[in-house]
């Protein structure tokens, strides 16, 4: 972070306290997601150590920390995308509605249906139109849906893209701008009605205007789902999240240094390393 962008704890705490608090646990969509003592390895390399983190239903949790501290690996263990890397291994439990997603006999496709994911780079399917992209999940997962037009509109409205694309739903997904493409990808992940949405630096390739739109979208979505977002942008974490977890890899595997309500992490962090990081003194 450069000097010009440097932020003080008080200014971030100010942003964070503007975020209206919700009582966690009262949302209708499941009882949230919980990671218990999660470790991750790539080959012999221990990259993530003993992460226990509770994502209450209807909250937004931001994962912050320097590059290479295991944030992305962690969220990929949550929806079992971690196992696509041949050398990957893990330990611990990830509980969705109280059931371990790694339990033997679990249908992994159903897990990924309930825990959606938005990637760092917008990745609309190139062979599909805007409308087809939004409804792609229904086709891919072979879900029955009676009124597709309603769902299409609902998802695009919730992703904050409806007004911009309603007249050209048959246009190519690639004809949109980067920010619009990312909101299209969010709309696409909403169409299968996930309980949890994982976002891996969804705004890192976008301009500030598009970032703002997506942040608004995230705040609206948090009314009805649990969101976990990896971000390198402190202000973004402060603006949109209820809870913030700070990850750090200091030579060894990545660990979670501190987790707490976002306003506290940015105003009264308990750990000196967290304070150094959120004030931009390193990282």
């Amino acid at each position: 972070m450069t000097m010009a962008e440097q932020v003080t704890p008080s200014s971030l705490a100010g942003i964070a306290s503007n975020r209206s608090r919700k009582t966690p646990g009262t949302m209708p969509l499941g009882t949230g997601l919980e990671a218990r003592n999660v470790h991750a390895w790539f080959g012999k390399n221990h990259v993530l150590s003993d992460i226990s983190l509770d994502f209450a239903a209807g909250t937004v949790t931001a994962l912050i920390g320097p590059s290479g501290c295991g944030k992305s690996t962690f969220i990929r263990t949550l929806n079992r995308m971690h196992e696509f890397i041949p050398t990957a291994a893990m330990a611990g439990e990830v509980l969705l509605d109280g059931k371990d997603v790694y339990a033997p006999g679990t249908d992994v496709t159903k897990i990924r249906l309930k825990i959606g994911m938005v990637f760092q780079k917008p990745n609309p399917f190139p062979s599909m139109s805007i409308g087809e992209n939004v409804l792609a999940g229904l086709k891919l997962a072979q879900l029955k849906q009676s009124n597709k037009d309603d769902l299409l509109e609902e998802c695009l409205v919730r992703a904050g893209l409806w007004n911009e694309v309603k007249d050209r739903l048959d246009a190519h997904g690639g004809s949109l701008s980067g920010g619009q493409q990312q909101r299209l990808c969010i709309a696409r992940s909403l169409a299968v009605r996930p309980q949890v949405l994982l976002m891996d630096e969804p705004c890192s390739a976008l301009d500030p205007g598009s970032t703002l739109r997506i942040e608004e979208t995230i705040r609206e979505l948090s009314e009805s789902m649990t969101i976990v977002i990896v971000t390198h942008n402190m202000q973004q974490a402060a603006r949109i999240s209820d809870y913030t977890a700070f990850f750090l890899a200091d030579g060894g595997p990545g660990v979670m240094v501190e987790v707490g309500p976002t306003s506290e992490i940015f105003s009264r962090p308990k750990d000196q390393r967290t304070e150094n990081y959120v004030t931009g003194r390193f990282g």
Partner: protein
Amino acid sequence: MTTTIPVPKPAKPWRATPKAMAPTFAAALIVIVGTFLLIDYTGLSGKLGAFTAASILAILTLSGAAFLQRGVQAAKNAAVGTFVAVGAIIAMIPVVSILGTVLVRGIKGLYVGFFTNDMSLASVNDPLDKGGILHAIIGTLLLILFAMLISVPLGILTALYLTEIKGPGSRLIRFLVQAMSGVPSIVAGLFIYSAFISGTGRGFSGFMGSLALSILMLPTVARTAEEVLLLIPSDLREAGLALGATQWRTVAMVVVPAAKSGLITAVILGVARIAGETAPLLFTTGGGDTVNANPFDGVMGSIPFAIWKALIAGSEESNARAWASILVLLVIVLALFFTARRLGKRRV
């Protein structure tokens, strides 16, 4: 302040447990037993019948097992997965069968002298402990070497012209290279014969054979190298140019090294194209029976030529000799590929 936490053992919980594998093992058992039953009690018979029965049973039982565990969609997934696996096995059968036949039949004709003698004092119908194919091994290696010396630089330069310089006539050149890859191999031999040998006073020689082989190898190398160079992201070229490099320096120090393993693949495919060619050598090398290490003078033997000669002789000894030569040719080609792969992987 850091407390050491006991680190659990790395696990792969996504791997199927033995319990989860049970239906799959049951399915395998049904396939084996069912195949024998179908062969015994129905009209199916022979290897083809058994394979068909086993394939259909595998698709049915494995998708059935998936259905019992995870429902209809998992069943479809397993059915398609098994179908693809069956297809891969069908594609592998001819390859494995050819390799197996060559190995079994070829090994009978091998003995130490096979690699140290030539056929100058033996005829193809002599007993197997007389004569050998040293002349053909040397000939084939020289033919491949000279064909490579000619077509690898030309092919890669052509590819660089098409992808980096994109100069005038690129489309025409690309079209001609494509057309050239369709030239029947015997035409390549005839062309060299009529252009460089017939009526010129020059006789057959290894170099003439290499020229004919180059005609076949050049388009393969050029086209594959072009595909590989097109895969190099233009960001890399721009990054080189943005450092103030000339195009030549960028291509030589950034683009070509980045494409190195692909370019080696292009060379391998080119060698594979020509290593077993016989037709272009008929009118160009003359196919001698004596060791001749001078590619520019005198007839030169080669393994495909020796195989051809031995096979048309038709006796038991000559057939065994031909199979042994085929085995040697296969081993030489595989050794070339292996070496090239190793060279390509090494990081500089």
